């Protein structure tokens, strides 16, 4: 397994390198017609099997598991490569895989694995991650459902062919019971979406559903009892985001180290100034420690996803603090040049802040960690 991961890491790194690294994001950003990633490039990635890392072989995936997905996302994250993997290849793929529902699995997994279908996860209804509250209603009549409500800031929502939507089939918005996940085709009547641009130049959408008709075949997991699956799917996506954040931090740090070695002020490389050396040493330590937590969270998802919550929250909170620290230092230690659009530091800073807000901030996950530990 170790060897497989090492091979995967090398091949992703080489591919990113040959694709021009951060230039891939700049190209997407400058072409406003794209949905936050370049479908042509994503087709190449899918061709390499990267959309199917979490999908079982019977559905066309490679089954490399979360550690494999972590390696992939870390390497892509190093150079901010835009691709609709978190919502589709991670969240939706896990949701379907864990759903125990043949209809949705057969309908969507093969397409997700081969990259011909893009899925998005639609949970949040406000600007801050609050999955404890699901208000979007799915009215049930026999085996049929009518869904109405709004989901906001849906990652890759404009490109998605299908949405995994958390809906309320019973109870009040804050109730534990009464949550059901659905796979809703983007083409469904009554489903509308509008694009949102965040500072990371990736694609987001506001989703509005008005009386969208579904059947039991669209259900992912249990009706009314979807909360546990939702948590598990969110944890899968959070760990994936943490892996991307780790990669982002590693590269932001490496680029800063390079600059410290070459930028000369007061007659010497600024990396020779002890105050900066100690800050670099602190970052190095935080990266090493955060890597342990991130890989541990991925391991937890591979071995027992139902109990991975605390380990995932530990990883996501540490990764959030890490990217905030490292990107702040990247800008500060580069000085003025980092304030220019031509330099990459701003791109790292912006992506870091979006990832930090995505699926729960560091503070949110410390609070969740405490709750899961029982205090």
């Amino acid at each position, binding site marked *: 397994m170790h060897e497989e991961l090492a091979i995967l890491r090398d091949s992703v790194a080489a591919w990113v390198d040959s694709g021009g690294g951060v230039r891939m994001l700049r190209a997407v950003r400058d072409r406003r017609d794209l949905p936050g990633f370049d479908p042509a490039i994503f087709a190449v990635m899918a061709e390499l099997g990267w959309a199917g890392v979490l999908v079982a072989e019977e559905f066309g995936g490679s089954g490399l598991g979360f550690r494999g997905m972590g390696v992939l996302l870390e390497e892509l994250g190093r150079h901010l490569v835009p691709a609709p993997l978190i919502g589709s290849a991670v969240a939706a793929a896990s949701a379907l895989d864990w759903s125990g529902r043949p209809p949705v699995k057969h309908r969507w997994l093969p397409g997700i694995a081969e990259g011909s279908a893009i899925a998005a996860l639609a949970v949040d209804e406000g*600007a801050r991650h609050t999955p404890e509250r699901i208000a979007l209603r799915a009215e049930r009549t026999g085996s049929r459902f009518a869904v109405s409500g709004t989901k906001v800031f849906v990652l890759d929502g404009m490109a998605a062919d299908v949405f995994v939507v958390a809906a309320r089939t019973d109870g009040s918005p804050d109730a534990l019971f009464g949550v059901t996940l659905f796979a809703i085709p983007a083409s469904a009547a009554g489903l509308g979406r509008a694009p949102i641009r965040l500072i990371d130049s990736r694609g987001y959408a506001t989703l509005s559903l008005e009386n969208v008709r579904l059947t039991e075949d669209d259900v992912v997991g249990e009706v009314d009892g979807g909360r546990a699956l939702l948590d598990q799917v969110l944890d899968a996506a959070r760990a994936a985001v943490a892996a991307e954040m780790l990669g982002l931090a590693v590269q932001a740090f490496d680029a800063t180290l390079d600059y410290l070695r070459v930028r000369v002020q007061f007659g010497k490389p600024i990396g020779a100034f002890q105050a900066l050396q100690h800050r670099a040493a602190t970052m190095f330590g935080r990266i090493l420690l955060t890597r342990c937590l991130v890989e541990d969270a991925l391991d937890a998802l591979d071995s027992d996803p139902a109990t991975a919550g605390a380990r995932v929250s530990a990883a996501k909170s540490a990764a959030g603090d890490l990217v905030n620290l490292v990107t702040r230092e990247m800008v500060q230690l580069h000085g*003025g040049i980092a*304030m220019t659009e031509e330099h990459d530091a701003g791109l790292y800073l912006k992506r870091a802040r979006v990832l930090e*807000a995505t699926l729960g901030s560091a503070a949110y996950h410390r609070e969740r960690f405490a709750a899961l530990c029982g205090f």
Partner: protein
Amino acid sequence: MSADRELDGLRASVREWVEANFPASLRDAREQERFFQSMPMYPTGADWDLWKARLIEKRWTAPGWPAEFGGGGYGPSASGAIAMALVQAGAFNPVAGNGTTMLGPTLLEFGTRDQQERHLPPIVRGEIVWCQGFSEPNAGSDLASLSTRAVEDGGDFIVSGQKMWTSDAHHAHWCFCLVRTDPSRKHAGISFLLIDMASPGIAVRPIRTIAGNSHFCEVFFNDVRVSKENLVGKLGDGWMIAKRLLQFERDPTLRPRRQFVGDARPLDQIARDYIGCSEDGRLADAALRDRIARNMIDAEALRLLQTRMTGDGATGAGATDAISVAKNARAAIQQEREELLLEIMGYRGLGEAGAEFDDVELETTRAFLWNKAMTIFSGSTEIQNNIIAKRILHLPTA
């Protein structure tokens, strides 16, 4: 006690006068926002002109400068009180900028009588916008390593080189510049020169920033001819003069204006709006509440420090010591405030564009990005710490 009472009276009269004379159309927060964002350009329009004329006539656009140059002739405490009272009364100084905060005080200390008479009145009247030509691509924190050359040629200098991070050079009429007149000496080889931006051989290229604006420029000097009458101080005095000017620049009390755009309300109010309260009436996120309280307390400490710096007896060494501390504190507190705003607003604080976000949110995001420069420019936090360690704490250098 009696000096304090006098200042209180002055403040009251500023308030009263603003009430009567500040045009209603400019009271709008968005108008003010726009002013502060476009300050280098001096906005135009009937009410703007009226306000400018009234404040100039009152001699409050540069209250601390001598009356002969159009200033108010007030002492430091009184002029500080006027500037602060203007802002507190909801108004602002429509000619504020590099001229009033940096070049003016410098010329008053180091300029010749001719230079003062020529350059100060247009600043007071808001006619001439100045930019600051200090930094260069290879002279950032190590400012004194600058290499833009000024070679004597009869009664002129011939200036060649490149300046960088020159704020608003594309709107400026004149530039105060550090140039190298002696390549064989580092600090003593620098001179302080005033350059007309309309001179042949100057090219300005705005730099697009991570916040999307183009506030900075690169300025290229290609054999630009500058008369020697524009040399401030003696040849080689530039570094000494610049150090003094940088104190003016870093002193936040000399800039009694709003320092950022975006949601300018108190943090707790914004947090209540975005996050809401629990049943006990407390902000519903306790860990965030703690961080917000800390930031508000820090901001209050800075406000008190700045008040002291402008108060009586604040002209001594103590006030100078405080400049680097206040510069760093202001930057750190502002940046932490903006990190907190992003945390409070969630995705709403991360928008680039679109109907999903209101203007204040989009400006808040841009301010977050833009104000990352606060710890870098005007002498980075690291440079200020070096200054504190060496000049104030007298820690050893070798």
